[in-house]
């Protein structure tokens, strides 16, 4: 039967050669190489659950009065969009499960991309010839952050509405063109026209997923064309020779198993752990707010940056050159993404290494890269933690203002310390390995020269 199917397909598409190559494509066998797949499977879960949700969501901001089953909102004014999400959560069977699975998938998707980025960065997999693959990946990350933000803002609840107001303020804070850009996107000053939600909706369910799909396809095609990098686990792996497990039969059940496993974890979270209970936050109004409002985790680095800035609008006479939110909300992420995009070029400049690389480094094999990467990571992580200072105050009693001052000093000092420590650790680990290697070589020599008996070891 397989023979009949393969013959049918090859006669009509001519793809048997491609199929043969694909079936025997070699995957280097290391667990860290599966992180990209985890991200891919999260994306698939997002598309499937998102399609389902789109069949029930209404993107209208028309004012309605709620008469559904949730008592605390009885008789309250809200938008149709918010009500449709309430109905998905309360009226549609399995609606809440799929909504929560979708939201958990979004959060884990970004985490998986980030873990995958860490693996690519700290093993030098972005080096020639894979820079384009890497840039495609960083672009996917950037676009995904926006996609998630738009997604949870579609619900029009109090928390995400406050987040949209802040996003609008960051847009406005861009020098020279901010207000014009904001007016363009929102259709005027915040909260904008009724069409704004339609724009968010189309961007979230069509434009950006299509963009991500295209970038992702290009990313995967490039990975396949140039083949994966690999760790040097034995003398067999070299810059010219790849050692790995073929797609079929070896890799297929593993990948399928990982896909079902990731989907299973996301569905378990979606059913067992509540996320974004919008009925508890209430509908958004520009004149209402709540304490403790936070964006989803992958934007937490920005709220930290916004809170750390001291009170300062940079003005030139009466012209406001740089409003305050620009530094934390726009410039800070631009610096981080610029670092990510420019790093392959920067590393080439700093090390003078222009060669092709198919072998992945262990982090300790590239102390400069590991140190710089760890330093930048520490910088971003500290700013991220600053964003939760109010909760730390509530739980641990450490004064909020004290924490702000601590972070303002720490973000300019601790990253350098962290980079130095990382550098020293890499160098020491490498030195230790060299000593061990020399001892082993000497032992072998001693045994060959019969200075030691075969079962003896040196002191």
């Amino acid at each position, binding site marked *: 039967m397989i023979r009949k199917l393969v013959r049918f397909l090859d006669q009509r598409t001519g793809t048997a050669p491609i199929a043969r190559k694909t079936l025997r494509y070699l995957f280097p*066998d*290391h*667990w*860290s*190489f*599966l*992180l990209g797949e*985890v991200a891919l499977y999260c994306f698939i879960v997002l598309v499937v659950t998102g399609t389902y949700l789109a069949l029930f969501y209404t993107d209208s901001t028309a004012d309605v009065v709620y008469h559904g089953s*949730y008592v*605390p*909102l009885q*008789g*309250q004014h809200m938008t149709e969009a918010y009500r449709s999400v309430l109905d998905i959560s309360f009226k549609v069977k399995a609606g*809440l499960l799929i909504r*929560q699975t979708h939201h*958990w998938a979004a*959060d*884990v998707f970004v*985490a*998986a991309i980030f*873990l995958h980025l860490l693996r690519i960065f700290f093993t030098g997999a972005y080096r020639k010839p894979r820079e384009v693959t890497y840039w495609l990946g960083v672009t996917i990350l950037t676009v995904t952050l926006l996609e998630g933000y738009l997604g949870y803002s579609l619900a029009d609840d109090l*928390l995400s509405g406050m987040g949209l107001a802040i996003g609008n303020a960051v847009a406005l804070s861009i020098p020279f063109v901010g207000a014009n850009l904001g007016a363009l996107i929102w259709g005027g000053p915040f909260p904008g026209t009724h069409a704004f939600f339609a724009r968010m909706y189309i961007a979230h369910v069509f434009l950006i997923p299509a963009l991500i799909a295209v970038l992702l396809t290009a990313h995967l095609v490039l990975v396949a064309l140039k083949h994966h990098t690999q*760790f*040097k*686990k034995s*003398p067999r792996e070299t810059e010219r020779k790849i050692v790995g497990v073929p797609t079929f039969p070896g890799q297929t059940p593993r990948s399928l*198993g*990982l896909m079902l*496993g*990731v989907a299973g*974890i*996301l569905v378990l*979270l979606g059913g*067992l*752990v*509540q*996320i*974004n*209970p919008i*009925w*508890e*936050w*209430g509908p958004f109004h520009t004149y*209402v*707010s*709540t*304490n*403790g*409002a*936070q*964006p*989803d*985790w992958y934007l*937490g680095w920005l709220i930290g940056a916004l809170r750390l800035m001291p009170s300062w609008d940079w003005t030139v006479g009466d012209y406001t050159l740089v409003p305050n939110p620009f530094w934390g909300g726009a410039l800070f992420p631009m610096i981080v993404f610029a670092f990510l995009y420019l790093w392959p070029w920067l590393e080439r400049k700093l090390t003078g290494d222009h060669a092709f690389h198919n072998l992945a480094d*262990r982090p300790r094999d590239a102390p400069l890269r590991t140190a710089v990467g760890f330093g930048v990571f520490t910088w971003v992580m500290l700013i991220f933690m600053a964003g939760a200072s*109010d*909760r730390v*105050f*509530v739980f641990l009693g450490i004064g*909020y203002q004290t924490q702000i001052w601590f972070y303002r000093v720490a973000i300019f000092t601790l990253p350098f310390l962290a980079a130095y420590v990382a550098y020293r650790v890499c160098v020491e680990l490498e030195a230790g390995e060299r000593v061990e290697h020399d001892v082993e070589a000497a032992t072998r020599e001693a045994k060959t020269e019969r200075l030691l008996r075969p079962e003896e070891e040196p002191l």
Partner: protein
Amino acid sequence: MSRLLLVTVLALALAGGAGAQGPAGDAKRGSELYGRYCYACHGPNGEGRTHVTIGAAPLRTQAQQKGMGPSLQGVGALAADFYLETGYMPLPKIGIQPRRSRVVLTSGEIASLTAYVASLGKGPPVPTPHPSRGNLALGFHSFSDHCAGCHQIVAEGGYVTGALPPALEDASAVQIAEAVRIGPFVMPRFSEQAISNHELDSIIAYVQYAKHPDDRGGWALGHLGPVPEGLVTWFVGAAACLGFCVVIGQRLRKS
């Protein structure tokens, strides 16, 4: 028989006239307790001590200085009951925010002290809210308007510059009614004109609901929103996926 009836009626009338919840307060016993716990900061007749004297400063413990506290004349049984039942008072250090703490007085002592403070001037009695008569939707709406900015939308507490609006999970209906009418520390004071008794009943109904809100989505993570959700994303979601990867893939053997 009729004499017994008369005595009973008189006793009940006296007890009702005291105006306190629970056991009737003895104002005379209250004045002794006042002398022990309150005199140093609030003055001999509850007029308060606001003048700075030698050795007095914020955050220095009471044993070392003359205390400082606002006037209690006219605050009524409402305020005394609130501060004593919650353990806000006695305050361990001058100038810090009063917080819910272990109550050192028995309920009889609290009643007596409340009666004494009430006698210091004409003030409001201990309120008798009826949250069951309130409207939950109105309560949610009012709470969002007046309270959520400081106390968070599901009353999990929060931060305001210089103070800690507490979570309200331990607040009783009477305590909520009292706090709203007092405005302790830096909380605004909402009079009956601003928030009617019916609206207050509704707000209390909502706060009581918020202690166990509708969490049909699963484990609620403390109702704090994206921060604990992010922790679960990393320590459960990403960790589990990472676990799958480690089980499926190979580890790096020493070369």
